[in-house]
């Protein structure tokens, strides 16, 4: 297992380098001068040129890219914000728990909702509930979360006054953003749970469980669900990773001071270092979530676990 984790961590390196290259290139090709944005429209050309030299913006694309990659890979240095002069990594680490908290709450809501609706839909296939749940999930997947966020603010905060519209000062503040961010995921999880459970219910071992006279509740909850949730766990993991990045718009709508809002604010003032660092940070987080899901997969599916053991034995024999 450790060998597998090591292998996966090594495989993450080209992914990270790829992300650095793509984000850096996009930011480099984007029109506009960061030095001009930092100093403002009234600054003299000499002052702008001096700042460009100071920030290394006059160097060629290749020199800038190599310098940035060196700093990231060998020094874990994501640079300093053009605007505040603070190290980007420190700022990201400070904001990451907030984004993580939002993603966790969203995944919790979407998992509970999605799995529950998926089970009921699958066990009552073609019923009114199944049709309604499928329709709701379709709406959930199709609805843009920034629009849903704005609508929920108008309805629950402005019109009804039940929940706060922005900030992250207490449990009440997380309800709307978490639901907004989790809606699409809940729909995806629901559809996956439903299709997976329907497939499992048709398997021979479910028929065997029924032939032994097991209660239908045991057949579904003990025999079918554990098998059906194996692919669902992967989807939940992927959703969690996606929510870390997907929180950008929701954090902006609800003014939550997480990584997402930090990146959006940086885009407005074209603070390249924050944008590059933020996207890279989220990409690495996503990769780690995927790694965790793969390891978890090995523990919940004994067939995968036994493959790890077989590989290990094979390696021992070959030595």
């Amino acid at each position, binding site marked *: 297992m450790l060998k597998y984790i090591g292998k996966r961590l090594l495989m993450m390196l080209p992914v990270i380098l790829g992300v650095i290259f793509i984000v850096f290139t996009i930011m480099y090709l984007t029109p506009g001068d960061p030095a001009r944005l930092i100093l403002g429209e009234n600054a003299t050309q000499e002052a702008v040129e001096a700042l460009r030299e100071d920030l290394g913006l006059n160097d060629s694309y290749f020199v800038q890219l190599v310098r940035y990659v060196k700093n990231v890979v060998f020094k874990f240095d994501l640079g300093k914000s053009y605007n505040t002069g603070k190290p980007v990594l420190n700022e990201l680490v400070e904001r990451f728990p907030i984004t993580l908290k939002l993603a966790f709450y969203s995944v919790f809501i979407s998992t509970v909702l999605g799995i529950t609706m998926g089970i009921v839909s699958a066990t009552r296939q073609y019923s009114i509930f199944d049709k309604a749940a499928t329709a709701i999930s379709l709406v959930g997947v199709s609805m843009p979360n920034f629009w849903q966020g704005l609508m929920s603010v108008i309805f629950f905060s402005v019109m009804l006054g039940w929940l706060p519209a922005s900030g992250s000062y207490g449990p009440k503040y997380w309800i709307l953003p978490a639901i907004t961010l989790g809606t699409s995921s809940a729909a995806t999880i629901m559809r996956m749970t439903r299709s997976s459970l329907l497939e499992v219910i048709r*398997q*021979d*071992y479910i*028929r*065997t*469980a*029924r*032939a*032994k*006279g*097991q*209660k*239908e509740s*045991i057949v579904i909850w*003990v*025999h079918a669900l*554990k*098998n059906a949730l*194996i692919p669902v766990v992967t989807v939940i993991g992927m959703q969690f990773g996606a929510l870390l990045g997907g929180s950008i718009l929701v954090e902006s709508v609800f003014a939550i001071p997480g990584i997402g809002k930090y990146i959006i604010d940086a885009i407005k003032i074209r603070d390249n270092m924050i944008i590059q660092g933020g996207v890279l940070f989220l990409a690495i987080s996503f990769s780690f979530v995927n790694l965790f899901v793969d390891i978890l997969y090995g523990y*919940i*599916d*004994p*067939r995968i676990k*036994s493959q790890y053991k077989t590989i290990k034995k094979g390696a021992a024999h070959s030595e």
Partner: protein
Amino acid sequence: MDTILDIKNLSIAFSNTNEGIKAVNRASLQLRTGEVLGIVGESGCGKTTLSRSVLGLLPPAGKILEGELVFEGKDLLHLSKEEKRKIRGREIGMIFQDSMTSLNPVRKIGSQFIETLSSRLEIHEEQARQIAEEMLAKVNLPNPKKIMNRYSFQLSGGMRQRVMIAIALALRPKILIADEPTTALDVTVQAQILKEMRDLKENYGTSIMLVSHNLGVVYQVADTIAVMYAGSVVEYGDASTIFKNPTHPYTKALLGSIPTLSQHQEKLVSIEGTPPVSNSLPSGCVFHPRCQYASHLCRLEKPITVETVEGVRVACHRVNSSNYTEGEDYIA
């Protein structure tokens, strides 16, 4: 011997309408206490559908159109879901053809076994574990403790099938339905499984319904045989009588296609043609397009089942009709 299970005029179709594909057509059979009833026939003849209908385990599209399934005086077709559930496993057990997929792949053998025993026999986990280990030993599985701690994919085909038998037998059912229990197993394992079935019948007086397309397997254990063709029971009676002196042309052809060591054969005998598709059965006798004795009458009229002098029930015009003329000009 008393009849423990009486199947009367059972018809099963697969469709949402009554006009659907008939998988079983007015089948009648009796299973007596302590008897092994072998149901044989080619693939798709309806034998598996018939056996699964006893436990009410037909797929969602399966529908019983008519007939009765009388078990110990109760018609199984008129029981509630809960009453059916109580009979499953406890009164009527079943082992399925594919042992690889019949066991839950993500749960250990022990966990599946213990759960079944503790919930169905209402006993403590420790007691259930003890019974499980005893049963695994009884079906000749080495080191039951080790097997209890394994997953189905870690066992061989023969071991998995024996686990299935052990689970089914642990509940001490009055009837055991074995659907192709030796398919895909090598000959030595096959022999062991069949021996276990004979022991089961002799030691516990269990009635067994053995479904197979392998006549050799059925010959070794069955007391009574039902030969099925295209959803209908074409011959039914004492096993030794049917094997020695088959009456129905289909049974004759089936037995004739088995290679023997005693006779030198240049070429294996095969039955001409293919079995009919369930949704477009031929008129008259369903076997007539493939029958070497078929006459004009066979094409027009469905034969009724009659009993021969030897007590075998046969559905064939050659046996029961004075109007039958062998070799009469026949156009298939």
